[in-house]
């Protein structure tokens, strides 16, 4: 089965069921968005896919590969890259070095060849740099290339994190709230980039996002979660007008008012 397939995923933290039998499939080339109120379990789903969490029940596979059989550091090698909700960059390194870490899964040299800086190391370094420069061009990061992350504004950090995920040349990109904390212009840029990533690069995108404007602009399908359970799946418009979704966001009293 190709694409990302999650089947009956359940994750509990003590007595709390963060994700409750969540099932969905992300088709190759699709932009799939997870929406829902805070604490709905969206990020938990992400952490299950990237194997930071092990679910109690259910199966997860990507292009036929059983994700649960792999540790977290194997996931990038399977072609899945991710960003984090609270930016997790390598603070003391420069933008360029951060993006180069994204190339880690394509590394062919080992510590011995690194130690002696064999010609193969230099050849690979040039190739990695060329690949990273493509990402820098795509995301307009040229002015920040040699700057350390510690001094960069929030909006740029968000873009660098996207760039680092793209540098891994993934087949599936997991974006955890790509637009949170961004200005209107920055969110628009982000929307264009996500569209290009899906359409031009052919990378499947699974994203968690609160900004419904961004979601309706880029997502082919949307799944709404609340209290760890699926509420509705469909296009952005269908999900937004779904009674269960409105109830989850606004409460039952308002539904009657809206309906009545």
């Amino acid at each position: 089965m190709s694409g990302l397939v999650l089947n009956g995923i359940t994750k509990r933290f003590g007595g709390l069921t963060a994700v409750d039998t969540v099932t969905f499939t992300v088709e190759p080339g699709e932009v799939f968005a997870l929406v829902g109120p805070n604490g709905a379990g969206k990020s938990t789903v992400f952490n299950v896919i990237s194997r930071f969490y092990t679910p109690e029940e259910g199966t997860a596979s990507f292009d036929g590969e059983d994700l649960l059989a792999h540790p977290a550091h194997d996931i990038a090698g399977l072609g899945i890259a991710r960003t984090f909700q609270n930016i997790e960059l390598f603070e003391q390194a420069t933008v360029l070095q951060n993006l180069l870490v994204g190339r880690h899964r394509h590394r062919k040299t080992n510590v011995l060849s690194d130690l002696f800086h064999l010609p193969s190391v230099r050849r690979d370094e040039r190739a990695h740099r060329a690949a990273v420069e493509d990402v820098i061009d795509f995301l307009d990061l040229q002015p920040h290339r040699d700057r350390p992350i510690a001094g960069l504004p929030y909006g740029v950090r968000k873009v660098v994190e996207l760039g680092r995920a793209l540098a891994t040349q993934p087949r599936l990109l997991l974006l955890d709230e790509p637009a949170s904390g961004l200005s209107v212009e920055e969110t628009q840029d982000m929307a264009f980039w996500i569209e290009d990533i899906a359409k031009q690069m052919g990378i499947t995108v699974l994203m968690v996002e609160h900004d419904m404007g961004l979601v309706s602009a880029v997502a082919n399908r949307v799944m709404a979660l609340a209290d760890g359970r699926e509420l509705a799946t469909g296009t952005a418009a269908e999900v937004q007008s779904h009674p269960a979704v409105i109830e989850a966001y606004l409460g039952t009293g308002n539904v009657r008012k809206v309906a009545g």
Partner: protein
Amino acid sequence: MRTLFKTNYDTDIDWFSHPAKLGWYLVLLAAFLALPLYFFWQNDTYLLGEVTSVFIFAIAGLGLMMLTGQTGLASLGHAAFMAIGCYANVLLLNAGVPWLIAFPLAGLIAGALGTFIAMPVMRLHGVYLALATLALSVLMVDFIVLGEDFTGGVAGISVPDISLFGFTVNRYANPYAFYYVVLGVCLITVAFYRNIVRSPTGRSFAAIRDSEISARAMGVDPAKTKALAFFLSCSIAGLAGALFGHNATYVTHETFDIVMSITLLLMIVIGGLGTIHGAFLGAIVVGLIPVIIANARTWLSTSFDITGNIPGIEQAIFAAILIGFILFEPMGLYGRWMKIRTWFDLFPFYRKGLFARQKSYLKTERVQ
């Protein structure tokens, strides 16, 4: 101010991004190559010995820097790994292995044993790892006493001379030759260190240091990477330990004690974490402060008739310097040097807050 226009990717890969940089380092190298001539002219082998031991400490500092500065794992037990290197070297030499084989082998043994010993504590972070490695340092002293048959225990063991291409190098008999041996080892270590830092291995170390969770998401295996960092770090420390043994000519269970472990950590914090320069600057401070204090004591007692024999004054001054650095210059001497250089580069546009962000970051999160 020099603006560097990069025209190809090699500029960022090469050791020296600019011919002028290479020039300055060549001048520095020439100065160190010529330094013994000055001491020969002055007939001052005492100071030459001091400079040699500064280099040995710099090598040990590079070893700890690989772990603490590059990978973000604090160790208060590096004297233990130096001890492994030292005793391995002595045992191999006594078994008749030529120095050119025994010496690197001692480093590898220290690396392998160090990684093996540190394996159980590698999952720990920050202050917990520091405490666990501190315990290793204490245990090592006991092991040296217990392993009397091999290590000489409390009575100690004498370190054989270095025999290199038919020459015998002894720290006292020919201090100049010993200086060049140490300088050579130092240069090779720096070359290897620099190669690691600019390679994918070095970047995976930095990734583990700055964010373990996103390092994992990028496909870096934390357990493997930390083990590798420990191996490289302990190997370098082992080489430094072997040289330290040659420098001391006689080692006992007290040679590689906790104070040395603490001194090493102090050294790289004072010098500047995560930089090669930092290891050297720190070694200079740590190596030369006792000399300065000793001179100051003599001066005080002769000029002012004050007996400068206050016990423990060295440690007190060290501690004051360390506290001063953590409070006012967390980026160490090298950080200070960078600021001075930037001041001249940007003159007259340098402003006070230019490095404020890095500083606040280091203060709050660097020592986790």
